[in-house]
């Protein structure tokens, strides 16, 4: 079995990250990585620390200790802007869009095109929005309706298009398929495949295995703030992963990949 990533450098590495909130170790010595053209799921129950870990990468929290390495160089990420400067974009489940604004306005929020006099150039923005969204989702037409009038999948399209406009190379998606119907989920899945082929690295955060299993190339599983292990999706079954999420138990045939949080590895 050859590793397709063997000759590539990781896009992002998080090394030995520690975060505590008032004595509670939310993230305890976790290391994960992400390669270009790869979709990696970060799984764990609520409270496993996956969201905290990811918020450190997106700049919402800061780690107490540990390193973030982007393109082989250590990066300082202290806020959302730093993350953006490192081409890391996060799509939060509920925080991505302003419902009352239309798709175009949301896409360009925070970096609008303005004309010579400093007034918003809406036509130019809509033009660019049509271009970007058409590439992602050819059926998208509602450029001037408030995004509250869009379906869940269409909203995800807008959120993803927004990240792409920022020239994201690393895309973090928080519960990308939560509250989406079957058709919508497939639509988001197709989008993710397309981005992957374009060479982006994508981190999918979810507490639901089924959402991300088929989309991901690899899975990092966390429990109680620690990494249970990192496995390739093709090497594991659903049950293996459920065991990792719920019991923190590494599948026997992959024990050599166990992280510090694997309960069975600790007792070996």
């Amino acid at each position, binding site marked *: 079995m050859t590793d397709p990533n063997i000759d590539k450098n990781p896009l992002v590495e998080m090394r030995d990250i520690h975060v505590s909130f008032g004595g509670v170790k939310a993230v305890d010595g976790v290391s994960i990585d992400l390669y270009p053209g790869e979709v990696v799921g970060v799984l764990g129950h609520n409270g496993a620390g996956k969201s905290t870990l990811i918020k450190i990468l997106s700049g919402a929290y800061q780690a107490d200790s540990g390193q973030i390495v982007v393109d082989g160089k250590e990066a300082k990420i202290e806020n959302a802007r730093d993350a953006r400067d490192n081409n890391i974009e996060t799509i939060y489940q509920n925080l991505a869009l*302003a419902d*009352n*604004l239309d798709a175009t306005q949301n896409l360009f929020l925070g970096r609008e095109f303005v004309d010579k006099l400093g007034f*918003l150039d809406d036509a130019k923005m809509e033009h660019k929005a049509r271009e970007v969204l058409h590439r992602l989702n050819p059926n998208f037409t509602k450029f001037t309706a408030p995004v509250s009038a869009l379906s869940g999948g269409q909203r995800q399209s807008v959120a993803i298009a927004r990240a792409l406009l920022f020239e994201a190379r690393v895309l973090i998606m928080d519960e990308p398929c939560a509250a989406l119907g079957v058709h919508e989920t497939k639509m988001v899945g197709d989008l993710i495949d397309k981005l992957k082929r374009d060479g982006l690295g994508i981190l999918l955060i979810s507490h639901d295995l089924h959402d991300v299993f088929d989309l991901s190339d690899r899975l990092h599983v966390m429990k109680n703030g620690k990494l249970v292990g990192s496995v390739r999706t093709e090497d594991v079954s659903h049950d293996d992963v459920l065991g990792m999420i719920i019991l923190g138990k590494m599948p026997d045939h992959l024990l050599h990949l166990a992280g510090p949080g694997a309960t069975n590895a600790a007792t070996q």
Partner: protein
Amino acid sequence: MSASLSYGLFFMSRLLSKMEIDRRLVGLAVVLLIIWIGFDIASGGRFITPRNIFNLSVQTASVAVMACGMVLIIVTRHIDLSVGAILGVLAMIMGVVQTDFLPQFLDYNNPMTWALTVLVGIVIGAAIGGIQGMAVGYLGVPAFIVTLGGLLVWRGAAWWVTQGRTVAPLDQNFILLGGGIEGTIGATWSWIVAVIAIIAIIYAAIMERRRRLAFDFPVKPIWAEYTNTIIKAGLVLAVVATLNAYHLPTRAAQRILENKGIPVTAENIEISHGIAIPLLIVALVAIVLTIVVKRTRFGRYIFAIGGNPQAAELAGINVKRMTVAVFALMGVLCAISAAISSARLQSAGNDLGTLDELRVIAAVVIGGTSLAGGVGTIYGALIGALVMQSLQSGMALLGVDTSLQSIVIGLVLVLAVFSDKYFHRRYSDPTA
């Protein structure tokens, strides 16, 4: 009957969306029209007269100016209960500045006096609003509490400015801001303003269409474009013609002519009021703020914050600083309103603007701004203010008790918000 009505409303709604006219705006205009016609019939033709319409325009001005700012406050999910009190304290300060302070350096009724006075008011208004905005944005105290406190603080401060003494008389140029007999721009200038407005309306429509065509975007059908423009231009002409049809009282006209040394004849005694200066101020404030809302980053961010504060923050918008700016802007508009209302009364008393916060908020809400934030228009607030003032003036004209007036206005406020919700749910076109 009800089915055909319902079908009719649906058809209207489709037609309006083709023309890209806000349905809510049409609903408001219809309500206003019903109120006007109703009062006109009830009062035996005394409501829809040039004189009454002129008076309405002047009486609405102060609340209308503040309502423009309140739209932005409410869109960002805040509220400002202190605007009436801020108006009071600023009117007192401006009163003292023009009658006690500036006359130490300038001669009596110096043409600079009114401008400097208003400038002082605007600066202090911005500071007061800014302080409240900081308490809301940076200290995280809810706007309701900050401005409830502000209501008491600034009303108290209004008394302290002169220990309760009413300031009068005010500067002769300053009182023109209130739109008294001489506080209008006359017939000729009113027509000039109308022509400029119509040119601007046509220019804006052409530019917008060109911009969209340049990118091959769908545009409105050309008939809709013409109808829109003709309606807007027609409204401007109708308003100006009406205001010009209201002539000065014979005695005032006589005095003006005699002052100018012109012999009085049967024709030249008919001097038109034209557009009152306060109405001109309202128009200016509304146009500037509409441009700010629609065409600037600042305006876009206000709506983004109202729609989703976290998303706005994550998009790199400095929500705290924006909060300060919006409240400071509200303070500036309070200063302008303070100038208009004290100039209209030709005196500044420390109870000026009492309960104005409620009138302003009611106008904004009737105008379709959602208290949940994120949704609202400047022009809606203006019509809301006009609806409120029309009800009040109309009932006063009919000799309805003040107590009954309050009851009616209170009920109308609740009814307005209810019907807006109801029709919005029922007849909004989900594809629009």
